[in-house]
């Protein structure tokens, strides 16, 4: 456990001292700020964070890979992976440590966005249900997106490749529900169910359905498992 902590702590320090993370934070807040205020310009604005959440998950398709691309790809590139893998550290400890670090940075971003919720609560009388549920959904979605990015970072020693592949997977997951109609039959249904949106929309409507929570947790577990396996397989190449 101490090694997980050590790996995570080192990565967190790098996040808070690297420009990439701050640029990601800046873009996230600027864009989501725009989504948040967009609706407020209406003559009869609704006190809701739904546009913020809907925008945030799209923005995160691009930003999650930017946060995770460095995690293992850089170790491979610098050769430090050689020291990491020859230290008495289990492969899962490395993956979980790195994942936790990206999660911490993501949660800080989420916390910064509480500003929007606070504004709503101060100046209006929003329905709290969709806001709490929406945040739960967004945190689950973000955690899943980070696990996807971690996997692709484990697979390549090129950060750009890692980021682009992760974006591809996240986009595919985002649009998967469209396959529902296009493919049809059982296959279409299965692909459609793997889509992110169907599972996320419930949250931003204020519905906390266990199915959706299980969906996101399974996605995270699946990609973390693959990451650990991929790291293990590096030894065999």
């Amino acid at each position, binding site marked *: 456990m*101490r*090694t997980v902590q*050590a*790996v995570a702590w*080192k990565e967190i320090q*790098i996040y808070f*001292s*690297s420009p990439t993370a701050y640029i990601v934070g800046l873009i996230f807040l600027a864009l989501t700020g725009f989504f948040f205020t967009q609706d407020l310009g209406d003559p009869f604005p609704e006190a809701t964070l739904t546009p913020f959440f809907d925008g945030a998950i799209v923005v995160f398709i691009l930003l999650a890979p930017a946060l995770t691309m460095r995690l293992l790809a850089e170790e491979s590139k*610098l*050769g*430090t*992976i*050689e*020291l*990491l*893998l*020859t*230290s*008495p*550290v*289990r492969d899962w400890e490395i993956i979980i440590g790195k994942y936790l670090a990206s999660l911490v940075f993501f949660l800080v971003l989420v916390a910064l966005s509480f500003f929007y919720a606070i504004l709503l609560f101060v100046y209006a009388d929003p329905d709290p249900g969709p806001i709490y549920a929406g945040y739960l959904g967004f945190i689950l979605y973000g955690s899943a997106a980070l696990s996807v990015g971690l996997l692709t970072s484990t697979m390549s020693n090129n950060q750009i490749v890692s980021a682009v592949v992760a974006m591809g997977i996240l986009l595919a997951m985002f649009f998967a529900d469209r396959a529902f109609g296009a493919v049809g039959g059982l296959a279409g249904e299965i692909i459609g169910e793997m889509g992110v949106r169907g599972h996320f929309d419930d949250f931003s409507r204020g519905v906390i359905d266990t199915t959706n929570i299980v969906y996101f947790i399974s996605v995270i577990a699946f990609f973390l498992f693959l990451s650990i396996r991929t790291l293990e397989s590096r*030894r*065999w*190449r």
Partner: protein
Amino acid sequence: MIQAEGLTHYYGPYPAIQDVNFGVRKGEILGFLGPNGAGKTTTMRIITGFMPPTRGTVTLDGYDVVEQSLEARRRVGYLPETVPLYTDMSVTGYLKYMGTLRGMSPKAIKTRLVEVVDVCRLGDYRKTQIGKLSKGFRQRVGIAQAIIHEPQVLVLDEPTIGIDPIQVVETRRLIKDLGRDQTVVLSTHILPEVSMLCDRVLIINEGRIVAEDTPKNLAEGLQGVDRLEVEIGGPAAEVLPVLKGIRGVNEVTHVNNDGRHTYTIQAQAGQDLRDTISQLVIGNGWSLRGLQMVGMSLEEIFLRLTTHEEL
């Protein structure tokens, strides 16, 4: 301390090392000497548990590096050839991190850090960002991380490559000091370095160990052997003594592969025995089906080594 048996490693279809066997005793400094691309790094990566061999086993203090990898890795300190460092960390930050990964307690790290910084003479650069250090200092940081957890086995891949001559001398002195308490395996392609540092030398070329000796004997250069592979059609019982009887032949091994008799002859270097052998075979009424020199002679390998220091 280290026991390697039948190590073979393939990168795709290409063998990097083939059937490498060696042992290292506790407290010994063993040198791998060979030209670039001979398989030194591959061997070291296998010893340190970075990758498993395609075939063969390595045990380290009795622990198999594949089966009991964690236990084996606990006992190794490793300096890869590229000296991988996190360039945006400070020297102490980096060493603390590596110490934690090797399972040291914060308290142990604190006391050990003082010693290591002292041994590697990093005193004035404790707080410096690694990216700003010169190559020689990075090398020292690399050695410092390899010894911070007081490993029983120290594996150093080309530890003196690419640093200036004064630093080379210092690094060698440091390795020599470390070798008093620890088992050290190092690789190099510089011949004099081996004689300065090592108790024993393995010469490796094209993935095979071609010689093993003390630096003193190697320096005398008289231990060289040429290897010949001959396929002869004739009764092995008669062929063997004839081959062994040739002047200059040290050893003959015989393999019978479905009636194809192949003999591997180890002969003293420098004398070409091919003519003698073919004449003897024909003279005895046997048939000569194949005759070739195997691999390079030691002399040729030495020619490809750096036999003097480039200043």
